[in-house]
């Protein structure tokens, strides 16, 4: 028998107290180890959807299963062993007085032994470049470093599904490189990821499946490269393609343009003169 999907949503709807219908009949199945880029305009329902996966919200209608278990019947502490959530705003999740304690909190709470906790904390502080700041109070750090602390905290739990809401926003170049490497490490160990972001270049780098949401519904779901190289579908849902994709679609043949995800791809196409046919 196949293992159950790590997350399975069936016909999920949700309305906020002020009447805003944020999810409208969403069905989505996420297999173990899948890397999903969840994209869509501001207010499309992306964060609301994710908050159903860790039990923060319960659906008004429909069902959410995590690892085969109904979220509505699971305790948050139980779900936290399987699902990790990096919030957009680091200040929504930081509450300990040192960076070390902040990162140790999760592993301690899932019952790891002291030496295992210490191991994890040290490993993830190093991966995120925070080892020297272990004793600092997180709230005295810059916004970018506070985000790095929360990334270390989430990754140190080593859950099987990690939800990352704009993981590289407000990080500078060096921090973003470290964060992406640390996340890739978790993915290589088989964790599934839902990457919520407006940075389509980041989606191209990290995801193999793309889900587009609009008005509380899933409006596209498929192979990441196929969707990301299709300016028409991106534009339709208010998502401007990245500059390189736009340039490729304007100048290169359709076939060549669909293969452009990095600068090196573009250079190769130029060398091979894969230009768009003249009108």
């Amino acid at each position: 028998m196949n293992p159950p999907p790590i997350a399975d949503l069936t016909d999920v709807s949700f309305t906020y107290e002020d009447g805003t219908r944020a999810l409208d009949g969403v069905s989505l199945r996420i297999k173990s180890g899948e890397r999903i880029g969840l994209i869509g305009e501001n207010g499309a329902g992306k964060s609301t959807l994710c908050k159903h996966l860790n039990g923060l919200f319960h659906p008004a209608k429909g069902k959410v299963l995590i690892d085969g278990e109904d979220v509505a019947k699971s305790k948050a502490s139980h779900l936290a062993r399987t699902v990790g959530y990096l919030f957009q705003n680091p200040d929504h999740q930081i509450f300990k007085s040192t960076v070390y304690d902040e990162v140790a909190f999760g592993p301690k709470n899932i019952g790891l032994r002291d030496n295992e906790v210490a191991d994890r904390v040290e490993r993830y502080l190093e991966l995120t470049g925070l080892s020297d700041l272990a004793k600092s109070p997180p709230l005295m750090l810059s916004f970018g470093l506070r985000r790095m602390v929360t990334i270390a905290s989430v990754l140190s739990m080593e859950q099987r599904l990690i939800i990352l809401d704009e993981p590289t926003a407000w990080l500078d170049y060096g921090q973003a490189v470290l964060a992406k490497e640390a996340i890739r490490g978790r993915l290589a160990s088989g964790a599934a990821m839902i990457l919520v972001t407006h940075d389509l270049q980041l989606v191209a780098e990290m995801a193999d499946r793309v889900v587009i949401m609009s008005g509380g519904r899933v409006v596209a779901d498929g192979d990441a490269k196929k969707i990301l190289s299709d300016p028409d579908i991106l534009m339709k849902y208010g998502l401007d393609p990245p500059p390189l994709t736009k340039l490729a679609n304007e100048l290169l043949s359709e076939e060549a343009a669909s293969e452009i995800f990095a600068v090196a791809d573009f250079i190769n196409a130029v060398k091979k003169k894969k230009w768009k046919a003249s009108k």
Partner: protein
Amino acid sequence: MSIISIRQVSFRYPKQDAPALSNVSLDIFPGELLALIGGDRAGKTTLCHMLNGLIPNLIRGELAGEIIIDGKPSSSYPQGGISRIVGLSLQDPESQLFTATVEEEVAFGPENLSIPPEEIDRRVTWALEVMGIENLRKKSPSALSGGQKQRLAIASVLSMLPKVIVLDEPLGMLDPRGRRDLIEILSRLAKEKGISVVISESRIDEFIEICDRVAIMHNGSLISSGSPSDAIASSDTLKTYGIEPPRLQILSELMISENLISQKQSFLGERRANEVLKSLIDREKGGVV
């Protein structure tokens, strides 16, 4: 003449060893669009807080040098006095939202300037439309998504129609269309209304081409200030300052090193990239015939 003049300013937060800013001098001129770029802890946020008087009037610390805003030292303004001249949207939009509805949030600033109600209403509608959140007018700010909150925080600055608009990392939570719309409107405000716009960012892909001037900060110092093409001439240098180089600039550098285009044809943004590549294609196609 400059609207804001920062002269040899250094600043250290209480209980911190290292200064947040060291001997920074920078003038901001009417109607210019200035990008303030740099990595984490470069000093961008501290400088933004200085441009609207939060430092030193509200945030205390050890300050040296002069901050002149619209002809007067910033410390000589009464509380709230600078907000008529300089509007600031903070990096974390939630920290500046506090009213019960979206429209009240945007009206709050102009109401404090004793502007007639009809004019306030016009400004609120305009700012909400510009930021694409007119449909959320009656909602509670707390019910908005992260990106919508960011749009609202910026709308609240726009409705003040200040002489200078300072936006500290405004693009982080905006969707791509929101980013493009914001950049377009800021550029129009600068050109048509003579408003100075300062955008602090560590990612510059989308707006570098339309800036009049780019100032690079690193470890509390101002490294350089000049035209976009001069300021960010090398992607390796940008990386050492913690700034992600624009992807099209990397493309340009690689095409030069592969002798596909000449040094003179280097490009930063989409418009110029398009021109250069089209001329390359025309030349090659011409060569075939």
